[in-house]
């Protein structure tokens, strides 16, 4: 069974069709890149899968539970790192993770263990007692990731997880995602094409709300003139009147 399955998700904003009949699946142990130019419909799709946005049609199943008809169970099985990694800046890292643990129904002792484990995975144990507002952007991103994994979900959706990180932080984040990807189903939205080749076994390319490729990074790269992923991305998604 696919840990994450999406069927025919569509969503319009007014007269603009942002996402059109998007279907995809991610199996446990698989890390899949979700690529596309700005405005292609990546974040809208991820928000619909996470239950933050209602689709006009279609459904997503997380660990077998429908986000439409069994939302709570579906969301319990999901770790979601939203675009921009929103955080409660007034809380300490530990209190933030405890808050998320409570909202996911973790009991006190279990939450304590899970906070320690998530903090260790995200390499933030040294800042657990610090207020989030005092942390650097890199740390904040890792705190948000720890929040997404604090309840140990089988499915992870990460929207731009390395956005704004310095090269060292990116390397650490990629290593963490690779490690987690051995046991979880991970869908990553990213603009960093080098990350796709480093972390992902499959790449899904979306453009103007529609999926235009779903293949291995190597096969996708071979579609470009220079045999590089960047060339393929440019060739498949370029606009006639790019600004």
């Amino acid at each position, binding site marked *: 069974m696919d840990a994450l399955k999406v069927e025919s998700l569509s969503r319009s904003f007014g007269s603009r069709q942002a996402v059109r009949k998007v279907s995809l699946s991610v199996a446990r142990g698989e890390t899949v890149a979700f690529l596309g130019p700005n405005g292609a419909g990546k974040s*809208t799709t991820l*928000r619909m899968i*996470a*239950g*933050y*946005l*209602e689709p006009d049609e279609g459904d997503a199943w997380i660990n077998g539970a*429908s986000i439409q*008809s*069994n*939302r*709570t*169970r*579906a*969301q*319990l099985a*999901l770790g*979601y790192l*939203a*675009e*921009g990694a*929103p*955080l*409660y*800046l*007034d*809380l300490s890292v530990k*209190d933030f993770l405890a*808050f*998320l643990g*409570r*909202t*996911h*129904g973790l009991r006190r002792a279990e939450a304590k263990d899970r906070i320690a484990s998530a903090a260790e995975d995200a390499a933030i144990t040294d800042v657990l007692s610090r207020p989030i507002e005092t942390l650097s952007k890199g740390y904040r991103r890792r705190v948000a990731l720890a*929040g997404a994994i604090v309840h140990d979900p089988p499915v992870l959706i990460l929207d731009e997880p390395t956005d704004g990180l310095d090269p060292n932080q990116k390397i650490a984040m990629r290593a963490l995602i690779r490690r987690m990807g051995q046991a979880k189903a991970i869908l990553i939205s990213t603009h960093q094409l080098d990350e796709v080749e480093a972390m992902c076994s499959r790449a899904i390319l979306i453009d103007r709300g529609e999926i235009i490729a779903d293949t291995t990074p190597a096969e996708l790269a071979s579609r470009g003139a220079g045999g590089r992923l960047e060339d393929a991305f440019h060739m498949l998604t370029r606009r006639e009147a790019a600004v």
Partner: protein
Amino acid sequence: MSETTAPQWKETLRQASSAMRAVYLRELSAYFLTPLAYVFIAIFLIALGAFTFEIGRFFQTNQADLAPFFLFHPWLYLVFLPAIAMRLWADESRGGTLELLLSLPAPTWSLVIGKFLAAWTVAGVALVFTTPMWMSVNWLGSPDNAAIFLTYAMSFLMAGGYLAIACAMSAVARNQVVAFVLSVAVGFLFTAAGLPVVTSGLSGMFGPGAADALASFSLLMHFESAQRGVLELRALIFYGGFIALWLALNAIWVSARKGG
């Protein structure tokens, strides 16, 4: 088998309860770990004292009751309670945390109730700090303590009504100032509807039936019966229904914000 079976229902309820508690504790800590609650309580008590002693002429009435004290509760709630509730949802929008909150495994209504209860707790704590007034009248004479307790309870319920409006307005507005102004404006309508000057004016224009119907929606009118020491079932039902209605609107308006 249908997915809407009892285990799913139970799981949702269990999660709703966990999320409600988590949100309640988070908001309560946001109030009490910052100066917000303390400043609110201090200013509320100073204002209440000033109104009770200066305008209500507490000592001049020579009555061992708290009538001059309770008289100003609706008007102070009208202004002060929006100040503590205005940040509840407007801040989530401003800080970008609405997406984090609304993608948690919990129904929106549980988050709404959690936030509302935290603000209501602050209002309750403020009321508790007014008990020296009650002690004073007991020292000065022999008041009807049952009537005072009833009026305190109804005042707390009425505070819930003003807070429910303010929570809902915080979900409508994207910034705190707009939320505050909207809350005071809407709260004023539901207060003024019971004022004699309004009811007599409406009675003259539309007849006494219309005036009475409008007055029955006034937070003030239902509090007046408690101030006379009368417990009216319809007042309890009114405040309960009023709070539930505005919290339902709050949940609807928060849900409408999903997806930005």
